[in-house]
């Protein structure tokens, strides 16, 4: 019986093939792929792929029997997906195609990770026609190899992974909407778009204080408010209309709605702290509640143990009925599903993916795929046809300049960059239009920076810096530069460096240690008017702060003496009449210290300007000199690191070899003179031998001469000195005599050294000569010629 059934199944397999051939023109693609697979798979696949075991054959028989009864009982309903053909052309029962596989990677331990991996890793192979069940269901292992799958194969893989991770998961065969079946997300809003940080949940509102005063009733014209209201209503209506219009832009309804076959995964509650049943769409990796409108109907549900058919009217919900429980389901025929670390990292087929959303395009790249570390690029468009770009947002990973996000707004031309902590200047945020220094620009710094600078906002004529936690309680410094006069280019360049400052406003927080009337709240330096104005903090229960305004006395010039300080240079308003007015000396000292502060502040402003330039330069430099930090925990990182190391090793070895060769070859310069170095004639060899020896000899002689020369020179010098000393000995001071003596000892030492070296050289030279001769005679290139 066994053989019969087996041959039967083979026949069926062949039948499948023939059928397929008949449908050749309808799906040539699928066919060629599967044929190719047949060839390959036949040799490579394990036996279980190619043959059915007795148990499996029995199961197939039961399934066929059931199918016959089912179609007899429910002639209106479509046939069920029970025993599709696998990649080897053998019929397999769907439950056995599920292969529960535990995973080792923590990333895909939970269902979210599994689903997004399956969705990312496999590209969709749409069903053709979309209303029919597929004839084929490939094993998960080959699906992983090809990285392309139908929704049934995706669901099978996902379900296998989930079962392996102890979820109560099922494959669901049914009907879904077009967008889901074809994974068409062009009508959805991009999920990344609403990741904009929502304001933190407002902190618990302080309890309503019954003693807070009610805001005064404002006197308003009722007529005006009505007008306003009307206007607002009109605007709202406009908006509404626009929205309607946009909605009508949606494509017409799908004619195949309710007929499109789809397969997805059902996860039941109860295991792994799943609270409620939900669906996972294997194509997008998203989860849906089990009553989601996108899923239109269910035909059947199965896991690795059982198969259930929906006996309800298929438009209703999702109650299942147990159908088969005849015997233990045989083991899965699919071999172990192997997901490598590399698969996890490369993620998408071709290591990148493009998804179109409504008015947006999302591109994703595997880590280290692009040279600049780009991992995600989101492009937003103004219109539905995606022609006019509004904004591009790019996310980066592992860049050495710590850039993590860059957003280019195409409308107002602003570029916004965000950085991780720990980069030069502690820059965290940078918003600018262009790289020249004179544009609008905003920078934020991390608190690691010592100077407590938080933010610096620049526009062409102004600069505002915000501080936090400073000891002098300064929190804001606003600088106004003199409006730039249009000048010729050269002037402009020189001008850019030092813009004249017109006004500096500094604001301070209240310093609790000082009385309010001595605690400056605002300090204004009007550099043009030569004035400094102080406003003090408000005292309790007062409305008017104390003020003081100074006029700086003129400095001394060539012609005039410095202006003396006079009382009328200060005007004070002290709000508390009981306080004694300050003494002239105190005022004078105050002015002096203010003038000093002014200088310092101006310097700080200049430094800030300089720093902006430096940061901009630094950013430019970084963009040019960009590379990625390699994480050794990723496979691509490892390979890259290894190749780098190998490259370095190779270079190193090459260099060493080169150095070695260079050291060894005494003949190289002589050989160079000859054209053909490969073959040496006997004459040439002898000639070279002779030349080499004579050359060496000459060098030895030269060396000896050099030493001799040195020796003679030193001796002569010494003699000359001695002579002059003898001549002038009588007139010499003690110091000179001492100098002379040290000079002599030094010279004598040198002479002795030279003498010794000469002697050594003379002794060594013949040996060296002989040694060279020997070496040449042993040289593989010369030896054969010299012997004869």
């Amino acid at each position, binding site marked *: 019986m066994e053989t019969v059934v087996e041959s039967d199944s083979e026949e069926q397999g062949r039948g499948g093939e023939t059928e397929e051939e008949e449908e050749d023109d309808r799906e040539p693609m699928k066919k060629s792929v599967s044929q190719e697979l047949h060839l390959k798979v036949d040799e490579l696949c394990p036996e279980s792929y190619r043959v059915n075991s007795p148990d499996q054959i029995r199961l197939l028989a039961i399934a066929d029997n059931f199918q016959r009864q089912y179609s007899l009982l429910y002639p209106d309903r479509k046939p069920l997906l029970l025993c599709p053909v696998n990649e080897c052309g053998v019929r397999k029962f769907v439950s056995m195609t599920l292969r529960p596989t535990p995973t080792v990677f923590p990333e895909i331990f939970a269902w979210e990770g599994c689903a997004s991996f399956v969705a990312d890793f496999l590209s969709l192979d749409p069903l053709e026609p979309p209303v029919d069940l597929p004839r084929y269901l490939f094993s998960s292992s080959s699906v992983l190899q090809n990285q392309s799958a139908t929704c049934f194969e995706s669901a099978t893989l996902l379900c296998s992974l989930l079962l392996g991770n102890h979820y109560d998961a099922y494959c669901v065969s049914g009907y879904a909407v077009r967008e889901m079946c074809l994974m068409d997300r062009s009508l959805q809003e991009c999920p990344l778009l609403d990741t904009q940080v929502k304001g933190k949940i407002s902190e618990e509102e302080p309890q309503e204080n019954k003693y807070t*005063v009610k805001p005064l009733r404002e006197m308003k014209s009722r007529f005006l408010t009505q007008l306003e209201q009307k206007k607002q209503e009109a605007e709202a209506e406009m908006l509404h209309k626009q929205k309607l219009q946009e909605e009508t832009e949606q494509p017409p309804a799908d004619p195949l709605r309710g007929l499109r076959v789809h397969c997805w995964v059902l996860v039941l509650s109860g295991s792994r702290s799943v609270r409620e049943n939900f669906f996972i769409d294997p194509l997008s990796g998203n989860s849906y509640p089990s009553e989601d409108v996108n899923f239109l109907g269910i035909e059947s549900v199965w896991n690795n143990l059982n198969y259930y058919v929906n006996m309800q009217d298929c438009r209703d919900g999702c109650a299942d009925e147990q159908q088969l429980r005849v015997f233990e389901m045989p083991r899965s025929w699919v071999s172990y599903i192997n997901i490598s670390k590399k698969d996890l990292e490369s993620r998408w087929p071709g290591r990148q993916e493009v998804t179109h959303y409504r008015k947006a395009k999302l591109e994703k790249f595997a880590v280290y795929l692009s040279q600049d570390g780009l991992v995600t690029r989101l492009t937003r468009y103004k219109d539905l046809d995606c022609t006019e770009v509004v904004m591009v947002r790019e996310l980066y990973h592992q860049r050495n300049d710590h850039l993590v996000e860059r957003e280019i707004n195409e409308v107002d031309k602003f570029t916004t960059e965000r950085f991780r902590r720990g980069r030069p200047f502690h820059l965290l945020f940078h918003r600018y239009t262009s790289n020249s220094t004179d544009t609008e620009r905003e920078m934020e710094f991390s608190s690691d920076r010592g100077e407590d600078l938080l933010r610096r906002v620049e526009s062409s004529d102004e600069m505002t810096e915000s501080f936090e936690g400073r000891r002098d309680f300064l929190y804001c410094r606003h600088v106004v530069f003199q409006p730039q006069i249009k000048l010729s280019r050269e002037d402009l360049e020189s001008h850019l460096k030092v813009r004249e400052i017109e006004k500096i406003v500094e604001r301070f927080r209240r310093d609790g240690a000082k009385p309010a009337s001595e605690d400056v709240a605002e300090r204004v330096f009007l550099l043009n008017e030569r004035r400094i104005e102080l406003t003090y903090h408000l005292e309790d229960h007062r409305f008017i702060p104390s003020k003081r305004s100074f006029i700086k006395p003129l400095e001394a010039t060539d012609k005039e003496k410095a202006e003396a300080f006079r009382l009328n240079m200060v005007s004070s308003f002290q709000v508390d009449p009981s306080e004694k007015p300050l003494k002239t000396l105190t005022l004078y000292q105050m002015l002096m210290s203010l003038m000093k502060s002014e200088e310092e502040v101006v310097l700080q402003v200049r430094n800030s300007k300089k720093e902006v330039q430096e940061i901009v330069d630094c950013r430019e430099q970084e963009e040019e000199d960009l590379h990625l930090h390699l994480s050794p925990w990723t496979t691509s990182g490892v390979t890259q690191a290894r190749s780098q190391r190998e490259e370095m090793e190779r270079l190193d070895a090459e260099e060493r070899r080169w150095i070695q060769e260079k050291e060894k070859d005494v003949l190289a310069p002589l050989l160079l003179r000859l054209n053909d170095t490969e073959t040496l004639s006997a004459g040439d060899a002898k000639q070279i031998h002779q030349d080499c020896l004579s050359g060496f000899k000459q060098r030895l002689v030269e060396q000896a001469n050099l030493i001799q020369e040195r020796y003679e020179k030193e001796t002569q010098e010494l003699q000359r000195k001695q002579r002059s000393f003898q001549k002038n000995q009588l007139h010499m001071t003690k110091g000179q005599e001492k100098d002379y003596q040290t000079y002599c000892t030094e010279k004598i030492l040198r002479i002795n050294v030279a003498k010794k070296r000469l002697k050594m050289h003379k002794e060594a030279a013949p040996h060296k000569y002989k040694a060279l001769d020997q070496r040449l005679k042993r040289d593989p290139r010369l030896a054969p010629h010299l012997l004869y």
Partner: protein
Amino acid sequence: MFGVERLFLQQFWNILERSLGSAGCYVTVCKQQRQEVRIYLAKLVGVKYPTRMMSRGILMNEDLLQRAILEQEPKDKGQGIANEEGTQLDEILKLCLEFRNILRIDHLWEFTSLARLNLNNNLIENIEGLGHLINLTWLDLSFNGIELIEGLESLQKLELLNLSDNKISVLENMETLERLTHFSIANNLLGELDIVLYLRKFKNLFNINLFGNPCSKEGDYTLFIAAFFPDLKFLDYTLLDENTKKEASIKHRYVLEEMKCEELHKQKAEKAEQRKEAEAKLHNDAFVEFLNGSNLFKSMFNDDQEADKLHRVPEITDLLLTFEKQMGDLCEQVFETGLAEHKRRDKEVNCFFTGQNETVIEYQQKALHILANFEQQHKERTVDMRKISDRELLKVKINQCNDEINQLCKGLMTLEFQMVSQLEDITKRLDINISEMVGYFTEMVQGIFAQCRDLEDDYNGKVRVSALALLDDASKDNLDEFLPDDVRILFTDKETVMDALATGHDNHLMKINDRETQLVSRANSWKVALIKGIQDKDLKENRMRIKDLHRYMDHLLVQLEEFQ
């Protein structure tokens, strides 16, 4: 700047001296050399060094002080101004009187703002005449002949005290110098290390200099100091590092632990005392002081001899006991209510003050906004006006400015009145709420006190009954034998007993009534005072603000007049 150099030299000198001392040749060699170095240093510092042998000491007088002040005045343009204005002695912050052979500290009482005083290198023998210098933070008396520490009691702000190179042998009379951070007593005559422990009471001490004392010759002197002054950073200009401190704490751990224990006990006792005080204050604020327990009851039966005798009768004792318990319960009730109500009132008042504060701040912001706007425009106008030469036009402009100023005045006034009326509103609201609370409280308390009175009546009735029975027994000579004699005697006289009972009853009722009235009237007067205080303060502030505004107007107008 000069002072800093001098300080540096002084420290340098101290270090030099210490190193000489530690080298062991201090006594024999140094006297002469020290003198030399001092003369040299004095030359460096620019002071003529007085050799003691030659010149005699001088007395401090106004002349000397005047000269010292002149010397330290700024040498730049400021001097001219200072000269013109004249210096007030009570405004001088710093005075340097070193190397002057001064014999006695004197004539310093006018320098009340003085913060720094250098009197080092003189011939002073007693610390005196410093009592008025309450703002002093820095006092240098080194290189004098002082033997006793005294006269520093009023210098509570003192942070640095230098008494090096004197003849001091005891540390004393410094209890009030709580802010002391730098204390230098090098080269004195401190004999024992235990003397130094006196300094433990200064929690802020940062640096101590002790070298050159007999006690600092002891072997483990550094460790000793490090152990007993764990917060000290520097000893003899040397950093006390962690290792030293650790070693020290290990070495002296037993003594230290004992001391710590003692200190802990003291602290606990202090805390308990404080807590008690706070509690008493709380009870007082809640108007229910001494109402917990049987205080009221006891006060009712104070100084009543007849009653005392009566109470020794067993039946009456029982009655008394139940009466005391019931009274105690009622008083406790009053007490609890009082505390709870106090909490409620407190919360209400706090709530009011936060609300009031918020309102004021809000209006301050508004006012500042108006002012800033005005000033911006005003400045522009004045700049414009400076450019105008035409008199007529200027006049027009000035008038315009005047108008604007009036406008500002009007705006701020409006704001002021809005605020005042709103503050009045919430004050009224507070008045109503607090009155309600106080009313509720007093009613409740009155109810309880009424119960007390009932109890008293009840008790009195019962006592009367049993007294009558006893009297009856007494008349029949049937009294219990165990009764004490004086009670027996008492019961022979019916009238005395009845009188005693009647007066006792009256007294008791009066005590209860008194307590009740006291509580109610205090609560009511507190309420009135609270509201009155708030209203007065508001009024005062209102007046102040209006005055401010007028003064500001005047200020602006005066400025404007300069243009004419």
